[in-house]
Structures are given as C-alpha cells and as structure tokens.
C-alpha cells in the first residue's frame, strides 16, 4: 500500500519537475486548453448554434476528429503485437509510449463526442442502471462500450507494468499477458466498431459500404504509427530515453505497408464509384469533383491524396525511407493526409447531399476550431504527463525506496529494491531525465 501511495506521489512530483523548455511546453498546452474551454463555454451557453453545423450537415469537425483519433488509439496495437507476441525486446522497451498514445487518443475521442452533444448534462443516460443504454442495437452504444473498455485496458496494463518495475520487480507474465491478448483484439474492435457506426447507416450510401472497415484499419495503421514515430523521435531528442533505430525502422515498415493498402482500397472504391456513376455515388462526386458549384471539399481531398501519394512514394523506396528527415516528412504527410481523408473527407460527404437531395456546404466555425485545438492540446498534455512518469520508471531512474528519500536519491542505498536495473543514476542526480540535451 505504501508503495502505491509513493508511486502516485513520485509520479506527481515527476510531472512538476523539468527544465524551461518542458515548462514552456506545459504552459503552452494549458493556454490552448483554456482557450478551448472558453469557447466551449460559449457553446454551452448558446447551444450548438455557434458551430457551423446544421440539420443538413449535423456532424462536423468534432466527429471527424473523433473518427481519426479512434484510429490513432487503435494503432498502439502495432507496438503491442511485436513487443508481446513476437517478444522483440527493443519494442517492449517503447511499448509504453504506444500505450500512452492510446490513452491520450481515447481521452480525446471521449472529449470530442462530449463536446458534440447537445445535452452533455444528460450523459448519465448512458450509464448502466441509472440510464437506458440501447445495447446491443445502437452502434453508438457499442462504440461507447469498446472505447471505455479500451481506455481501461490501456490504463491498467501499463499501470501494472510500471508499478511492478517501480517496486523493482519483474512483471508476472500470467498477470499481464491475458490483458495484452485482450487489448490486441480490443484495439482492432474499437476501429471496426467505429467504422460500423458509419457503415451501418442505410441512409448514407457514402458510408454504407463494406470496405469502410478495412479502410479504417489501413488508414489507422498508417497515421497512428506515423504519430508514434514522430513522438519517439521527440522523446529520443529531448529526454534521456533513447529509442533504438530498428524500432523506428520497424514502425516505418508498418506505415509503408498500411499506406500502400490504404491507397489500394481508395483506388478500389474510386473504381466502383466512377466506372458507372450512380445517384448513390453522388457524395463521392461531391467530394472529389464538386456538384453544381458545391465543391468545398475538392481542394481538401486532392491535397490529402497528394500527401498520401508522396508519402507512399518516399516510404516505398528503401533508400528514401532510410533517411530520417525524409521518413519524418513522409510521416507528417501521412498524418495530415489521413486526417483529411478520414476526418472531413469521410464525415461531410456522408451528409451531402442530404438523403432527400439537398446540397449544403459546411465549414467549421471559430468555436469548433478552437474547441478542437483545445482537445488536441489536452491529449498532448495527457501524453506528456504519462510519458513523463513512465519513462524514468522504464529507465529505472525512478524506483520505490521504502523510507521516503526516494525522490531525491532514486538510486539510493537500497539497491535490493530494484534488481536488474544497472543503469541507475548517481545519488546526487535528481530523477529527472528530461532536458539534459547533450
């Protein structure tokens, strides 16, 4: 019990310890969150009228971000599988970072659906016993269930691993492996269910296609690992935590294959919609070419297409992919490309034209933009805090020392507390690995 209290105490201390750059980062994030909260306050006061939404286009940039981020959350599985199933030690070393991305992404998805609600005060209507949950009929009910379950898995498994390490022990395979197995299937399920949330709608031919699920997964395993690759390099650069090159190479390979599959699936869909254009395919026409002067999404989707193609080109050619700068460019392109394609490019054409044929343009309002930015900042803050605590524990620089001097002398004289961690710092050195850039 004492170690549990110490774990959280040390964790909190850890969060408030850092150099100037770290603090500037935190302050910046909090400022963006505060700005978003202010605009969300306006939305609460005046209703969703302050958004660009309408009866015609009733979901917009909130749900677009939600959809994208479910994919990012699911992508953590691409570290979990090699780490735990194929036992790659170097990836096991960074798997916590993937899980941190998952927690941050799920947190953002929950925030995005919450700000999209007209009556957030009634969110308790979904709670078991108190509320009336339309399970198993409603795909939205399924989505709520799988997302909260995924959040739970990605909080508990890393917590167990970290806590055991913090206490200086080794995680018990029999304890964590069942959880890991479940989380692998669960990761696939969150994104499949989210795809079904859309594809189940007979009212919306643009979504009502069996290929939506596979496309969701392919794009998720593109953008998620791309985000993780960038995050790993940032961590490698700004903290004492070092990421081995083969880990990045492995992730790059996953991004490459996923993006290739994603482009292939897009081509398949393109062929089906345009070989013999039907009225059901008018939304695709609106998305790619515009209809009767309604063409708000055309520049966006072609930008996304261009980004994805360039990214695929860089990634597919090995000498290009091997160059770190080019790899990063490809990752950034893929992240943005998928965000457009799967965000606005997926949600809005579902609504345009309306099921009874009305063309209608949507563009997000200032409130929607700032609230969305605030939520992204909140996600980055969650990720920052989680990694700030997790990495020193993973490195063995933050360990439990019964007796209370743990935070100042993490290496301490109580060597027995953490066997198997040779790289412990000198007692004089505070347990803050970040910031000491060489």
């Amino acid at each position, binding site marked *: 019990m004492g170690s549990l209290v110490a774990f959280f105490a040390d964790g909190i201390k850890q969060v408030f310890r850092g150099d100037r750059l770290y603090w500037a980062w935190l302050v910046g994030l909090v400022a963006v969150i505060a700005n978003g909260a202010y605009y969300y306050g306006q939305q609460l006061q005046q209703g969703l009228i302050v958004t660009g939404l309408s009866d015609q286009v009733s979901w917009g940039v909130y749900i677009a971000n939600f959809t994208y981020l479910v994919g990012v959350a699911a992508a953590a599985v691409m570290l979990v599988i090699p780490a735990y199933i194929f036992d790659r030690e170097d990836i096991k070393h960074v798997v916590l970072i993937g899980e941190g991305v998952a927690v941050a992404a799920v947190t953002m998805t929950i925030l995005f659906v919450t700000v999209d609600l*007209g009556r957030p005060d009634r969110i308790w209507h979904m709670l078991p016993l108190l509320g009336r949950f339309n399970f198993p009929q409603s795909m939205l009910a399924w989505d709520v269930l799988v997302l909260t379950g995924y959040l739970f898995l990605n909080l508990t498994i890393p917590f167990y691993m970290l806590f055991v390490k913090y206490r200086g022990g080794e995680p018990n395979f029999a304890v964590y492996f069942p959880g890991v197995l479940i989380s692998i299937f669960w990761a696939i399920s969150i994104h499949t269910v989210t795809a079904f949330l859309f594809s189940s709608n007979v009212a919306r031919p643009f979504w009502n296609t069996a290929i939506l699920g596979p496309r969701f997964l392919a794009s998720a395993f593109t953008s998620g690992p791309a985000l993780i690759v960038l995050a790993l390099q940032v961590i490698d650069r700004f903290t004492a935590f070092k990421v081995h090159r083969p880990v990045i190479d492995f992730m790059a390979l996953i991004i490459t294959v996923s993006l290739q599959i994603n482009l292939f699936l897009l081509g398949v869909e393109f062929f089906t919609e345009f070989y013999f254009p039907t009225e059901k395919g008018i939304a695709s026409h609106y998305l790619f070419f515009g209809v009767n002067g309604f063409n708000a999404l055309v520049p966006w989707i072609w930008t996304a297409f261009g980004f994805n193609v360039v990214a695929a080109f860089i990634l597919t050619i090995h000498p290009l992919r091997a160059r770190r700068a080019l790899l990063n460019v490809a990752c950034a392109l893929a992240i943005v490309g998928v965000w457009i394609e799967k965000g606005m490019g997926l949600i809005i054409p579902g609504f345009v034209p309306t099921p009874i044929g009305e063309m209608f343009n949507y563009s997000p309002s200032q409130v929607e933009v700032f609230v969305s930015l605030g939520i992204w900042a909140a996600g980055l803050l969650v990720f920052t805090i989680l990694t700030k605590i997790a990495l020193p524990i993973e490195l063995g620089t933050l360990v439990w020392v019964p007796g209370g001097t743990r935070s100042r002398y993490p290496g301490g004289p109580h060597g027995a507390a953490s066997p198997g961690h040779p790289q412990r710092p000198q007692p004089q050195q505070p347990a803050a690995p970040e910031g000491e850039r060489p």
Partner: protein
Amino acid sequence: MSMRPETQPAERSGWSRRSLLKRGGMLTFLAGLFGAVPAVAQKVAEADDHALSDAVGALFQKHYQKMTPEEVQEAIARITRTAKREQGVDITVATDPPLQGVIFGYALNISKCKGVRRCVEACVAENNQGRESQIQYIRVLELEKGDMNLNDADHYFAPELVPQPGKFYMPIQCLQCDNPPCVIACPVQATWKEPDGIVVVDYNWCIGCRYCMAACPYWARRFNFSQPKIPKEQVNTDTHYLGNRPRPRGVVEKCHFCIQRTRKGRLPACLEACPTGARVFGNILDPNSDIRYVLENKTVFRLKEELGTEPKFWYYTD
C-alpha cells in the same frame, strides 16, 4: 405505451450507497462537470417560482416509459410551470396513450399537391417549432415532371405562383417507418415507436448526439441548435408530452403525426391546412377508413422502399 411503474426496492436501505451516489454524488459530479453550478446558483438568486427545483428535477428526470404516473405528473407540472415562468403562457400537457386497435397511416396524392406549402405553415403553428430557428418538419420539393430523382429537386423554390408549369411537388416529412433506423441508432432509447406506429422522442431524455439524424434516410429529424423561441401569442397551448410540448435546446424533434390531435380522433394540422385535399390520414387497421381506400384502390409507392424501412406514409397519383 408501456408505462411500467418502476418498483423501487433499489432505493431502499440495502442499496443506500447507490441512491446516495444517485442523489448526492451524481448531482455534484454532473454539476461540476458541466458548469451547472453557476446556472444553479443564478437560479437560486432569482429564487422565483420553483425555478431551481424545476431545473434540478428536469436534470434527474427518468425516461418517460420508466416514470410512474406520479412522476409523469410531476414532470408535467415542471413543464407547465416553466412555460408560465419563461413564456407567460398557460399550457396543458396531455399524455393520451395510443388508441387500441389503431395504427396510423398517411397517404399523399402528388398529382393534387400544388406546392403552396400551407402544410408547412400549419405544422409550425400547431407544433410549436422555434420561429427564429425556423424548424420545419415538412420539406416540399419541386421536381421536373418526368423526373423522380430527389437529387434534382429544388428545395427552395419561390416563384410568384405555384404550381409552375412542367413541375410537380413532393412534400416529405417523417414517414413513421415501421422499421425505423433512427430508433435503432439512438444510444439511449430516447426515441421509439409507439404501438400506434408513431415514432416519438422524449425531449427530456435525448442527449443530442444526432446519430438518429445520420440514420434517417428521409431527412425527417430536426435539432434545436438554439433555444426554440415563439412569440407568446403564437404558442399552441394544447400539447402532448410526446408531441408539441415545449422543447429544450440541444435535443432532436420530428413530425409525430400531430399526436396531440390524432390520439383525440382529430386529423393532423397539415391535412386540415391542405387546400387541394391531397392528404389522407387514418387508421390502417380500419377497413372502412379513407387511408385503406387509397391503399386498396390507388397505385401507391413509398420512398426508398428498397431500404426496408417500411414507411407508413404512401404517395399516390390520380
């Protein structure tokens, strides 16, 4: 309507923790989370005529089908008090249950419809839709003769005179599907099909996620993006709980076949307003009804029948 009074063993001694959570913990949790504290505090400051208790009561109100008759009466008292306090009108809120042996159906003669949109006006007046927000349950499409493709329709036709030569008109409202995709979609069962076939919404239970709007193939659902506002003298005070009673901001609403009228044996407002007699309404279980005559003697069709939604709204021509 299945009004199953919820027996309340759950709230007795053995479960005190949950009821505590429900009463106290839930209150502070939700209030803190959603900024209700300032709102509640303001209400306390005003402290006039049950404002606070009504706000709190509405916050923790149960699903309509789960309320006991007493709880329904309390809810209605809150609604009427709020209408009096905020709009200065005395409204009645009925809860007429569905009539036995009745399933409502609607038929519309598109060769008679001239596109004058009296139905739209009458509907707004009858059903207390927000005037500023301009919510309308009925959308009349103007189509080129020889073309039934809705994607070619004009939704905002405004000629000097209707009908325009070479055009025909097609009003679309909620078709009260027998297999409604919106009901399946709702994550909290805030919308359901009544035994008389009307798809209704509990405006106090809807969380405003708008998934039903995405699910509806007929674009029949509307959302209150802002607080519905109606000039005092234009409020229809004769309301039904599942129909035209005042709606809060942030919830979905839709055509309910004028439930406040039809369950009392009257006809929908849109039908009464139609100057051409294009509309036919009635009990499809009654072999002698007008609607049955149309179904049996006219060539009828339904919108997007291939989706399997089984609308109870038929179109026909002379």
